[in-house]
């Protein structure tokens, strides 16, 4: 269990580091794609360990636990969002926050139609 967790932690920290370096490199105070880099590191190290025959249930369980904890974390996140101030920050925030989202769903639909014309 702890081996998988340590592997996840390694990939997470390395990925966040890359995101922070990329942010500094671009001259902005933000993490650029840290989660994405970490995911790629995890996928690559899983492939490497599997090809060496070192991957086993020990690793899998530590990762699976956090994978499953993901939805509860999202629930906790939703409960700790500042919903009240978002709803009371005025008509402009409500319009500028929802209207483009509705349009964006339309854009996703059109884009996916372009990519998969058979559907």
């Amino acid at each position: 269990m702890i081996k998988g967790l340590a592997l996840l932690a390694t990939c997470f920290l390395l990925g966040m580091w890359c995101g922070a370096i990329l942010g500094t490199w671009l001259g902005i105070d933000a993490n650029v794609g840290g989660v994405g880099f970490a995911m790629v590191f995890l996928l690559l190290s899983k492939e490497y360990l599997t090809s060496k025959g070192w991957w086993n249930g020990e690793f899998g369980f530590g990762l699976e636990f956090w994978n499953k904890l993901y939805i509860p974390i999202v629930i906790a996140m939703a409960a700790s969002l500042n919903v009240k101030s978002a709803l009371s920050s005025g008509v402009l925030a409500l319009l500028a926050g929802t209207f483009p989202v509705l349009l964006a769903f339309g854009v996703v639909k059109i884009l996916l139609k372009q990519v998969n014309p058979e559907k």
Partner: protein
Amino acid sequence: MKELEVILDKNGLIVAFLFVGILTWATDVFSKKALNGRIPGSALAIGLALVLGYLGGVLAEGEQGLADLSYLKGLSTLGGSMFRDFAIVATATGASFVLIRKSGLLGLVSLTLGIGLFFGFGVAIGWIMGYRDAVSLCTIGAGACTYIVGPVTGGAIGASSEVIALSIGTGVVKTIAVTILTPIMAKWIGLNSPAAAMSYGGIMGTSSGVAAGLAATDPALVPYGAVTATFYTGLGCLVCPSLFYLILSTLLG
């Protein structure tokens, strides 16, 4: 009773596990018994959590929803960005690297489209509501991207604190809108494959909204949406105060 209060107060994160567990169990039962599973339990739980977050904000008058109630302060740890990002990375074990690489170009196109679209409409709505200066319009447009891009941009180009607060509000409304609307719109837009999730993540961008929306739609798609959404805020912070601001101030003379 005093002992219990001390225990609850000292072990916030554990109380949060208990709270989320009870909420999930209750919504699962409700989904199966009352709705015949038509709305997934996780979608109900996320929606209910938003309502509770609103009530928490009203009761405690803070900025962290339900986590402002002192016994539930652990919710902000469990739902904070550290655990959220850690768990998103863990979902990658169910993803295929080959599929991500295959859809890389689609993801890039979606990211560019998404930031441009949200910024453009944010600026347009700001204009309609009476803002005319490039700094305020740019900050509102950036807020329409995510609630991080808004204040970062506003700070960089010197917007007033009122406009920065407005841009944060806009970004949080966006996160909530994406969370609620994704499971409703998923079928209509064809959100049913890894490639679709990657372009959806790139266009919507808000990591929290994309994460919550996909969790309520199909948890297997979460890593694909997250892998593109994670670049959105950084890219937004890069282009909004520079390129987009220059374009806006040129257009407005």
